[in-house]
């Protein structure tokens, strides 16, 4: 089980050493401890960092496995396979794409999928690695999501735009019509960057709902 002293002790060790090398600045117990742990595992095969990650995630993965499989043996098989992948493939973790917990979830999901497939002794080509791509999709010419949103706004959403709550409409106008960056909007309206982002998200959701197709 993880306790705060073990985190502290760990921070005083490897984390400090690496930050002296300038590769990373670290505050003890910040909310990126697992992302950092994965980096140390990838770079140094750091068993101490791994063992802390293990203490936190293995019992939770077991709870997840029990929920999904309904039995102890398969749950533990899933935990072991998942945590083995974490140890062996830590290099594939990319903090710019998401949290450690997201990555670990996707591994557990894939392990479970392949276990179920094997149990049904399906010999076809459907494997979790192919079905659940974990990585950056190639940029698509002319269809990245910003343009999709722009297109959406231009073609479909204009009539609904006026009905947005004023605070959201303000942010949307600055970002999409005046093409300002989120940071610029945050400065201009004196609101936190996170609020700019969440207002955009909420507005897009509203607009999406407004034009929602009965099929989907």
């Amino acid at each position, binding site marked *: 089980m993880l306790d705060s002293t073990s985190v502290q002790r760990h921070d005083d060790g490897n984390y400090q050493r690496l930050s002296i090398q300038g590769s990373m600045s670290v505050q003890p117990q910040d909310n990126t401890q697992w992302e950092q742990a994965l980096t140390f595992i990838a770079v140094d095969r750091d068993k101490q960092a791994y063992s802390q990650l293990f203490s936190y*995630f293995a*019992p939770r993965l077991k709870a997840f496995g029990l929920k999904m499989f309904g039995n102890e043996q398969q749950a*533990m098989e899933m935990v072991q396979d998942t945590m083995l992948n974490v140890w062996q493939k830590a290099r594939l973790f990319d903090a710019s794409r998401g949290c450690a917990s997201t990555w670990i979830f996707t591994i557990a999901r894939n392990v479970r999928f392949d276990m179920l497939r094997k149990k049904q002794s399906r010999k076809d*080509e459907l494997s979790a690695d192919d079905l659940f791509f974990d990585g950056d999709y190639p940029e698509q010419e002319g269809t990245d999501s910003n343009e999709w949103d722009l297109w959406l706004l231009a073609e479909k959403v204009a009539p609904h735009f006026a009905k947005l709550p004023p605070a959201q409409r303000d942010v949307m106008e600055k970002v999409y019509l005046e093409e300002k960056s989120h940071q610029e909007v945050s400065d201009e309206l004196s609101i936190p960057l996170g609020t700019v982002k969440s207002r955009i998200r909420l507005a897009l959701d509203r607009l999406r709902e407004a034009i929602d197709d009965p099929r989907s």
Partner: protein
Amino acid sequence: MIHAVKYHPSVELLEQYIEASLAPELSVAIAAHLDLCPHCQRIKMDLEAEAGVALAALPQAQSTETDWQQMLDFITAQPEAAAQQKQRQPFAVQIQNSEILVPASLRPLLKDKLKWLNLGGISTAKLAGEDQHNVSLLYIRKDSEVPQHTHLGVEITLVLKGKIYDESGCYGEGDLLINTADHTHTPRTMSEDCLCLSVLTAPLKFKKGLTRLLNPLQHLFY
């Protein structure tokens, strides 16, 4: 005007997909749609992040200290695996005398030579699946109509190339049509050929006159 995907899977369906609780054959269609749709790629990432947060917040399930320690020792005794991020590029396949780019997630299903069955303006080649679930390619020549049919289960059609029309609209590259037992529809093409991925969770049931005769054949057909 750039083409933008207009018909997407519902968030609920994407949720089942990222949890792997969807039938694998249906997941193929969702994975191929994701290859074509940056909008849903982002929702997928958001949903996986939420699932990760939920995982990290689960109460711990107990095992003995010895069990955990044994597992930990076993794992850390293993060497690092050569792990490479997979490439995710569309690839070209030869289909009905033309070269067509298809989404990367279909690659493992297209290793073998395709066996096409032709019927009027429509050709079909089975990619995977058994029993109630079936993944196939559907090539519909221009100005052709798929006989009106309903479904006993769910039919997912993903347009890979060209356009297809039915009673509810026009679907282009990347668009995902989902039809359930409640829908009757007559998909057709207009001025261009169309390639679709079709996933069926149960056999189709044709409705009209002579095409009823197709019913006994349709295990071959789809």
